[in-house]
Structure formats: structure tokens, C-alpha cells
């Protein structure tokens, strides 16, 4: 008979192993799923976990996709550690695309050609501000009216999507675009500089890595970050210490909104170079999984971001190579998160095998 027994101390090892275990279980279930779909499981798994790393071009795509995932997840980690449940990073990301892309579009249409060193930071700053503004709606409603930040931030995602639709179907539609709902292509002076010749990888990835370091410093070296985490772990202790709950709420939401907005700005001038209704591919939601698989830790988030990015690329390859359904990536991501949460039980409990005799005693 198997039973769970509480550990005297949470296991540090298990906390690190749990994501690995969840990944292995996901792969096993994925293999079963391939068999059920009538595909060769070895080939299927290869597409998802080997193919994306097999050559430089594919690998650079993995890094490219991981960039916004990591950037958004860093902000979410700060939020979740503060016990502020921002589920609407997707909406903040879209506002980043709109405001960052909006600046780029304005520069393009008004024919202003700025040096890259000015134009790119301008666009990215606009992206950050856009994301922050969107997150601050959630913060105000939470702070003043005690509205659930989970619901408000989530619902604002759909509002943000409609806002994108309105802009590209309306005021920002490219007059020379054959009535397609899209903006003009941005001027090359606003594009993010390329990082690796022959690939689409841009310096956004380096920015994300720098942000990893900054987030680590904020979380573990700055008093402000400490205050946020105390508020998340023990609200009564934060009240006792005199750390303001509303300052923490605002800090957490502005940081995560700002980082999601930054990711949006980077995508706008890094990958899309124009705005279409399809700029949203659920990155803001995938980043939630990245955040948890990465154990809410900046370094863990790098690995988790690469992993989830690999699964996205693998899903695209699977569609073209094996004719797998588009939804499969989402299924795998969901599986990974659910299995991770299940495996996390082992951090606080261990499995004990008890003989029937001992049970009857």
C-alpha cells in the first residue's frame, strides 16, 4: 500500500527535480498520444525535443521565441512571489505591441528617420509604458475596490485584443495594404538590431538575459524585493513589519506589466515589424507556465523559457512534417503544468510503501 507521508522539511532536491520529473511524464504521455494518433512516437518526440536543437537556424528560432517568454515570466515571478495573481500578461503584452509598435509606426508614417540608438529605446520605452498602463488598471481596481486581480487582469486581455483589432482594422490600417487588416511595415531604422547573421535572432535575447540578472538582484538583494516577498509569504508579517500592501501591489503589477509590455515592444520591432490582428499567440499565457516550471526563479526561468519555446517550435514542425493538429502544443503545455503541480506534492511529502501487515497493526 502506497501512502504519502509529510516530510519534516520540504525537500530542496525535489523542488529542482520536480520539473524534470514532470517533463519526463509529459514525454511519456506525449508518446502515448502519438500512438493514439497513429504516428510513430519516436519520430513525434524527436520533432518536439530533438529537431528544434538540431541546427543553428532552428536553435536560433528557439532562442527568438524564448525571448518574450523569459521577459514576461520574469515579471510574473515577481508578481506571484508577492501573492499578486496577474493572469493578464497577454493583455499587457498586447498593449506593449500597440504602444511600442505605435511609436514605430508614427516614426515610419511621419518620415522621421532617427538613429537606431534613439529609435529602438524610444519604441521599447513606449512598450514598457503601455504594459504598465494596462497593468495599472488592474492595480487601481484591486487597490481601491478590492476587485480580484485574477479576473480583472484576465478580462482585460480580451479588451486588449479588441483594441488591437480596432487599430489595425481602423485608424492604423495600411492604405496601400489591399484592405488587409495590418499596418504599414515599420521603417528599418526602428528595427531591433540582429544578433546572428542569417537568422532572425535579435538583441532582444541579450536584453532578456540582462533582465534575468536584474530581476535576481531585485528579488534577493534589494529591500524592496524582500518586502514584496514577505507580503506574499506572510501578509500578517508584512503588516507587522509595516510594509505597505498597496505599495507592494503596485510595484508587482507595474514590474510585470512593464516587462510584458517590453516583450510586446520587442516583438513588434523584432519579429513582426508591423501590427496585425495575429500578434497575439498566447505568449502571455505560456509565460505563466514558464514561470512555474522555472520555480519562480530567474535562472530557472531561462531553462523553462527555452523548453516551452522548443515545444512551440516543435508544434509548428509537427504540423508541417507529420500533419499533427495545431492544438497539440497547447495540450503538451497544459500537461506539463498539471504534471508539475502534481509532482510538487513530492516537495512536501514522500511516498512510503507500507506492508499490509503494518497497516493492520
Amino acid at each position: 500500500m502506497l501512502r504519502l507521508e509529510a516530510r519534516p522539511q520540504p525537500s530542496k532536491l525535489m523542488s529542482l527535480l520536480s520539473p524534470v520529473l514532470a517533463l519526463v511524464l509529459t514525454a511519456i504521455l506525449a508518446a502515448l498520444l502519438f500512438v493514439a494518433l497513429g504516428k510513430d512516437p519516436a519520430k513525434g518526440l524527436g520533432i518536439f525535443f530533438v529537431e528544434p536543437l538540431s541546427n543553428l537556424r532552428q536553435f536560433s528560432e528557439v532562442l527568438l521565441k524564448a525571448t518574450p517568454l523569459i521577459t514576461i515570466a520574469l515579471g510574473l515571478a515577481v508578481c506571484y512571489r508577492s501573492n499578486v495573481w496577474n493572469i493578464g500578461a497577454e493583455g499587457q503584452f498586447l498593449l506593449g505591441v500597440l504602444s511600442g509598435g505605435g511609436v514605430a509606426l508614427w516614426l515610419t508614417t511621419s518620415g522621421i528617420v532617427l538613429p537606431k540608438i534613439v529609435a529602438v529605446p524610444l519604441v521599447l520605452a513606449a512598450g514598457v509604458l503601455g504594459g504598465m498602463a494596462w497593468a495599472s488598471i488592474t492595480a487601481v481596481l484591486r487597490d481601491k475596490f478590492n476587485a480580484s486581480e485574477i479576473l480583472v487582469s484576465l478580462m482585460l486581455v480580451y479588451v486588449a485584443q479588441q483594441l488591437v483589432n480596432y487599430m489595425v482594422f481602423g485608424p492604423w490600417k495600411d492604405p496601400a495594404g489591399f484592405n488587409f487588416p495590418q499596418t504599414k511595415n515599420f521603417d528599418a531604422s526602428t528595427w531591433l538590431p540582429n544578433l546572428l547573421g542569417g537568422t532572425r535572432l535579435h538583441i532582444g535575447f541579450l536584453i532578456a538575459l540582462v533582465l534575468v540578472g536584474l530581476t535576481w538582484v531585485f528579488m534577493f538583494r534589494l529591500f524592496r524585493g524582500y518586502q514584496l516577498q514577505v507580503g506574499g509569504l506572510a501578509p500578517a508579517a508584512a503588516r507587522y513589519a509595516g510594509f505597505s500592501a498597496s505599495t507592494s501591489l503596485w510595484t508587482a503589477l507595474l514590474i510585470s506589466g512593464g516587462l510584458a509590455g517590453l516583450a510586446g515592444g520587442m516583438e513588434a520591432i523584432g519579429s513582426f515589424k508591423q501590427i496585425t490582428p495575429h500578434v497575439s499567440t498566447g505568449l502571455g499565457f505560456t509565460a505563466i507556465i514558464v514561470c512555474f516550471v522555472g520555480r519562480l526563479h530567474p535562472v530557472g526561468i531561462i531553462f523553462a523559457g527555452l523548453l516551452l519555446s522548443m515545444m512551440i517550435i516543435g508544434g509548428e514542425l509537427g504540423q508541417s512534417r507529420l500533419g499533427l493538429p495545431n492544438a497539440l502544443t497547447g495540450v503538451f503545455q497544459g500537461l506539463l503544468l498539471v504534471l508539475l503541480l502534481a509532482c510538487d506534492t513530492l516537495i512536501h511529502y514522500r511516498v512510503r510503501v507500507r506492508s499490509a501487515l503494518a497497516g493492520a497493526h
Partner: protein
Amino acid sequence: MLRLELIGISKQYPSVRANDNVNLRVLPGEIHAVLGENGAGKSTMMKMIYGAVRPDEGEIRWNGEKVEIKNPQQARALGISMVFQHFSLFDTLTAAENVWLGLDKSMKLPEITQRITQVSKDYGLDVEPLRPVHSLSVGERQRVEIVRSLLTSPKLLILDEPTSVLTPQAVQKLFVTLRKLAADGCSILYISHKLDEIRALCHNCTVLRGGKVTGMVDPRTVDNAGLSRLMIGAEPPQLQHKQVKAGAVVMSVQGLSVPKLDQFGTTLSDIGFEVRAGEIVGVAGVSGNGQQELMAALSGEDPRGPQGSIKLFGKDIASHSPRRRRKEGLHFVPEERLGRGAVPVMSLAQNTLLTRTEAVSGSGWIRSTAVDLLAANLISRFNVKAGGTGAAAKSLSGGNLQKFIVGREIDANPKLLIVSQPTWGVDVGAAALIRGELLKLRDAGCALLIVSEELDELFEIADRLIVIAQGRMSPSIPTAEATIERIGEWMSGLWPQAGSLGAGSAAPAPATAQGVRHAQA
């Protein structure tokens, strides 16, 4: 024949052997005390008798026959009943409905109501069956719990620290009931760490230390020192209580009224008192009479106190945040150690940062080595047993964590230290150390305000006493002039000049009344 016998009972938990070859013998009609410090294994033993936990080894005999008690239902069927320290009553239901819920449903509610009235009369337990529980005082709630147990006609009644929530008078009343029960043949297991009570009430006493039985004595023939030697292996050190002259007023509270936050809270009304440098003012009271609300208002966690109601060195601090009050010299030790006084999963080093920001630079950087050093100093200065500065707060025992938290605030050299329940759930050795440190701080000229539900503790260390009852504050009285009886009376709201509350109370002695006016002026 013995009513209950435990033979060689052991219980191993993952990190601790809670009971180690424990024996217990209880006669019919005997009031048997189980004495021990926190963590000595009392609760584990009771849980095994009540069927909530199963022993690893040993046997339990009930009326001479070997039994296996698999669950609480079975224990109740045998005739074992338990009154827990924390009540399990539904606030919105009446007393009778609560009792009815806890029993098998063979009786109808009106029948139960009648039985309650009968049992209440038989044993002198005042319970009005039709009153909703939220309108009952803590003592009344406990009586509902006891009546619920008695309706099952138990042969063995287990009481877990029953007096921690009662006034001295209510304790005497409870004892009358228990003696009557025992005279009727019911055995009583009385769990406590209060030596005086055990010596006054119990026929026999089993002492536990570190999971082992260290003695079986007749408490009526042993003195407190003897009992505590068995309990902690040594006598607690005697405190040095020097008479110190109180200095200038440090904190003055006047007209502090704060409405309650929820229906089960207590409204503070027109609280007023003073604390002077170099004195300890003790706040007595039955739990739930506004102590928590008062502490939150004084510490700044609840900043709703009216303007000018709280002054520190004459300066109004009523609207200041806890951090700002701390900067001005007001430090506070809350009663909840885990989750309020310390963040459970954070290390001791990180927990020093809650109230000690010396190691934080002006620009908000944490200097880790300085933090570590500070934590290490606290650990050695206050004799905290912990696995280093990196140990999580929740890995410490209650006593050690309390030493750490009290130490953290004392070490900050406060001008006013407010402590809530300084030795709650703390073993005798740690309690003595903490009280000693508080006295040292007083002798160094700090003003102290100490809230405690243990009257003995207040009488031991306080220079002046005030009583809080139903959200109101009594006048203060020098400890030397106070008696347990008078404070007990005050604890039920009957003090001189208590207004509507005090109607019909005994006339105050003139000397005290004068002292009172003087202290209030």
C-alpha cells in the same frame, strides 16, 4: 481495577520520538494530571487515547481489557470524551444545536435542550441552551463543550489546558464541577502546565519530559519546585526583581476608540493609560476582550486610532505606520510567532530584516553579511537553539523562535517595548530567560507594556497592572497592592468607576481609588 492503563506506548514521528515507552494508570473517579512542557508528548498521548493517532508499540487497556482504539468514534463508544483547547463550535448556531450536532442523532433537539438544562443543573455548569454561540463568552463556550461531552455519559473525560481561557473565578467554578464529576465515578485526565492548579485539583500526576515519563506523584504532597524539577529537570532560575523608580511618561494613550473590524472582534472604547520609563505595565484580561485589537492599534498595524489618542514622548503617533513607530523607538512582539512575528519559510537571517533595517543601505541594498552577523549575534546572545542563521523560522521550536523574536526587538534598544503573550506555549526554561531579559530591559530604563493571559506571569514581572475587559480598560493598580481575587473581579469588567459595566460591584478601597485617580491623571 484500573479505568485506563497505557503500557509501554511509543510513537515515532518523522523527526521526533513523541512518546517513548510511556505508562499511565488512571483509577475510576480519579482526577489525574498529565504535566509537561510544550513538546513533552502530552498531546500525542491524549490523541492516542482518543483514537486520533495510533501508537507504534505498546498496549492500551480499558477497564482491564486490551483495546485498539482506531478512531474517535470508537473512543466515544467506549466512554472516552475529550474537550479540546480550541473549541469546535459553530458561532451561528445555538448551544443546543451545537451539542446536538456532535452527538449521534438518536435524540431530538428538544430532548437535547432538556438534557442540557438537567446536566447544567447537576454539575453547576451555567449553559443557556437556546443562546447562539457567538453571544457566549469564552468560559461559556467551554461549558458548552463540557456539557456536550457529559451528554455521552463518559467514563473518562480528557481536558486539554482547560483554564487558559478562564478568569480565576471561572477556574474555581470549573474545579467544583470536575470534583463533582469525579465523585460520580468519572475519571478525568487533566492536561496542564500550571502547577498550582494541578496541586489544588488532582489526586495523581504523571509527568512527561521529552516523550518519557519522569515521575508519578501525588501532587498534593509535592511542592511546585519538586514538580517543576520533574517537568524540566531543573528548577527555573529565580528572577531578580529590583524596585526601580519609574521615570518620565513614554507612552500615553487617551480616548482610544476603535470600532471592531468584524462581528467577532471587540470594539475598543475610550482606552486610556500611561507607561513610564523603567516600569513594566501588565495588561491582564480574559482572552478575546480586546487585547488583539489594542495591540494592533498600538503597534500601528491597525492605524484607525483617532488623532491624538496615542502619544509617544508627547508626540502624536496615532496615524504612523508600524515602521515609523519603530523608528521612533516603539518595538512590538506579537503573540503569533509564525506568520506575523516571523515569516515561516524564510531564514532567521531574512527574518531579522522584518524589523531591523540597520543592514539595509540608504538606497535599499541588503548587505547580506551584515544581516547574517546580526542574526548570528541574536542567536548567541539569547541562546537560541537553531541550525544556524540559514535555518527556516518554522524549523525552530516555539520557545526558541520566541527567544529569537523577543531578542530581535530587545536588541534594537527600544524606548518602549510592547509584548503580547511573552511566554505563550514556551517551555519553562525559555520562559524564565525571556522574563529575565524583559526585567533587564526595564532596569535599563525602557518602558514595557506586557499583555498576558497568565496572571502569575504578570504578578511576577509587572510593576503596575491594568485590566482589559470587553474592550474597556480598568484603572491601574500597583502590583504590590493587587490580589488575584481583585484582578479576577476586574477581569469580568467589575472595577471601580467602570460605569455601566461596574454597576453593583463592590465598593473600592479608598486607598486604591486614590491611587487610581493618581495614575490616570
